[in-house]
């Protein structure tokens, strides 16, 4: 079957729309997180989301978002907060929360199995799944709305995000409400991670966040061009990855990430070549 035939099916179109939007959102804050040395926050939070999903399924909630979204947002706020003045430093706190949530989530799923195919469920949550191909219309609408909100907020506060990323002390001295914007960044990142769980799964979300930013940073030198280019790279990689996975029957999340890694390698080589010239 050709790609065109696949595109006749609404669920394929839904998957492509959702995939592109999620990758776009994830890449926007990637630049900030990489520069703030918070690359691993995506990993930590996605494991928290995994734990929350386990709780939600044990509680037999029909709409898991009600529980997963708030828990992830609270953890995001706590993690970005502790970066500044905690006894346990940022990276250690993230590692703790990350593995702790993973262990408790898996434990809960084992103690209170909700289906007969436990390892299948776990694998799906960790690595993403074909669930992106079983999206309902409502899921698509929800993702589209959330993505538009995220993108709009990002564009509005773009200059402030630059200010608090480049120099928190100067921003504070200039009267910018640094804590408010850090909080906003934390909330946005949590929302994106919960949305992205469906696409690539818990273990691979970090890749969506950091790879486009890192690739763009090899080639471009201003904050704006890095941000724009990382969004472009992210969308292209997501589209390519999804199409490849549909045609070749490979896992969606892993294929997208593999494309991201390849693009990063290319960007590094081009960056080196240009730098030398």
């Amino acid at each position, binding site marked *: 079957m050709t790609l065109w035939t696949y595109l006749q099916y609404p669920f394929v179109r839904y998957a492509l729309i959702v995939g592109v939007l999620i990758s776009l959102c994830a890449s926007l804050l990637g630049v900030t997180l990489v520069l703030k040395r918070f690359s691993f926050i995506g990993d930590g939070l996605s494991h928290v989301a995994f734990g929350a999903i386990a709780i939600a399924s044990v509680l037999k909630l029909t709409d898991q978002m009600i529980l997963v979204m708030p828990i992830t947002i609270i953890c995001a706020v706590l993690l970005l907060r502790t970066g500044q003045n905690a006894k346990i430093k940022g990276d250690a706190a993230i590692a703790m929360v990350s593995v702790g949530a993973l262990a408790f989530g898996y434990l809960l799923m084992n103690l209170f199995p909700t289906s007969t195919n436990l390892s299948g469920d776990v694998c799906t949550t960790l690595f993403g799944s074909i669930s992106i191909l079983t999206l309902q219309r409502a899921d698509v609408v929800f993702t589209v709305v959330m993505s538009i909100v995220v993108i709009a907020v990002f564009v509005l506060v773009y200059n402030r995000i630059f200010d608090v990323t480049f*120099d928190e002390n100067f921003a504070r001295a200039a009267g910018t409400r640094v804590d408010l914007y850090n909080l906003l960044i934390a909330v946005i990142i949590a929302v994106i991670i919960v949305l992205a769980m469906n696409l690539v799964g818990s273990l691979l979300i970090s890749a969506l966040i950091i790879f486009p930013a890192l690739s763009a940073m090899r080639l471009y030198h201003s904050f*704006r061009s890095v941000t724009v280019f990382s969004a472009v790279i992210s969308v292209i990689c997501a589209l390519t990855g999804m199409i490849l996975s549909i045609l070749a029957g490979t896992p969606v999340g892993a294929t997208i990430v593999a494309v991201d890694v390849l693009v990063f390698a290319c960007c590094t080589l081009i960056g080196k070549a240009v730098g030398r010239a």
Partner: protein
Amino acid sequence: MEKIARMALITCRDLALGYDGDIILKNLNFTVNEGDYLCIVGENGSGKSTLMKTLLHLTDPMGGEIILGDGLTRKEIGYLPQQTVVQKDFPASVMEIVLSGCQGRMGRRFFYNKADKELALENMRRMEIENLANASYRNLSGGQQQRVLLARALCATRKILLLDEPVSGLDPKVTADMYQLIKQLNEEGTTIIMISHDIEAAVGFASHILHIGKRVFFGTKEDYANSDIGKYFLLQEQEIHENIEAALTEENREEVGV
């Protein structure tokens, strides 16, 4: 004689400094007038950085008060912080960074307007970096980076600059340029508060000295050079320099010997 008494921009009364509940310095009294060039010196750990953070309202004073005069608001103190690790490989153009100095003027606006951009350009001209507008900050030399951050600080203020060790990590020639540049800004009417390790340069360029530590001195640089504490520290500084030079020549001798 000056015709009009100059306005006091910053007055500190019985200021007590510290953090986490510990007071490290108290009963600090000094005034910064318009056009002054105040140098804050003192040993490591004497509270220079805490004083600066308190002046910028990043830390609350533990006692006493800071009075801002002549319509100065706390947002209008141009601040040149020390460079952070994050900034070393930060992908940002010079224009983006200088423009971010206008963030205090934005109020409820989300985007920079034409006036902000013109102010940024003007301050880049003053720092002679307008040709670098689209250059990447991470590819600049240390001296150029300081000029960029200085231009940013100038966007935040019309009156007063607070410089935190502006020459740390710069080579001697660039250091001299930097001091010259700051002096020129002061002559153009900008009030300068500078934190420095370099007592000699402080006495050379500043109009006033605030020495903090176990003993506190505040006054003009002439008084400082004649005071006991000033003499003591200037002498000490000289000895350190002599020692370093002696050590260097010895090293050279050894190298030649090998």
